[in-house]
């Protein structure tokens, strides 16, 4: 079975402060990890995926297989980063089944 854990329901930071949204996963095979974001009144959308190793909107995430983690980081939080963030894992079902974590609400305060 595949499982994704996001320990923080809510993370509140000040504008300009560093952000780290934690994600741990459980999967016996070789996983593919993603971060999805849902801004207020918008659809859930892909933010980034570990295989592309790119930075999107200043966010990065590194897959750490030893710690089974895929934490999302940004050095300086912006007000527009306030949103719900979901970590997701694709593993079983030939890469078709995407399992989401419980989500972390990020609130960036001025």
């Amino acid at each position, binding site marked *: 079975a595949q499982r994704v854990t996001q320990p923080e329901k809510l993370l509140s930071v000040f504008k300009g402060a560093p952000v780290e949204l934690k994600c741990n996963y459980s999967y016996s095979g070789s996983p*593919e990890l*993603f971060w*999805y974001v849902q801004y207020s009144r918008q*659809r*859930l*959308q*892909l933010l980034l*995926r570990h295989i592309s190793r790119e930075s999107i909107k200043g966010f990065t995430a590194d897959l750490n297989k030893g710690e089974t983690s895929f934490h999302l980081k940004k050095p300086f939080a912006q007000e527009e980063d306030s949103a*719900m963030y*979901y970590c997701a894992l*694709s593993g079983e*079902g*030939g*890469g*078709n*089944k*995407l*399992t*989401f974590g*419980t*989500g972390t*609400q990020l609130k960036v305060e001025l």
Partner: protein
Amino acid sequence: DTAVSQTPKYLVTQMGNDKSIKCEQNLGHDTMYWYKQDSKKFLKIMFSYNNKELIINETVPNRFSPKSPDKAHLNLHINSLELGDSAVYFCASTLYGTGELFFGEGSRLTVL
């Protein structure tokens, strides 16, 4: 221009009723999903169809029956609605194996 569209956006109904939610995508994807988001914002996969064939069927009560008439459509029919069915139901689509899901806006179902 909407990529993944769901109807209705809001649905309020009584316990015991039967209701349907429809989903359509114009992205040319071959795989579609239904996810349920509960009051705590937890997203749980329910079903997935690839080229009109059911490929994922999670532990969902028999009262929920998906139907995919073609690759671009995936509908969800719910019989004998219960209070616990109240949630936001999200449709999503993708090209099989890519992992990038495109979501609809969600359909908020309230069972009274």
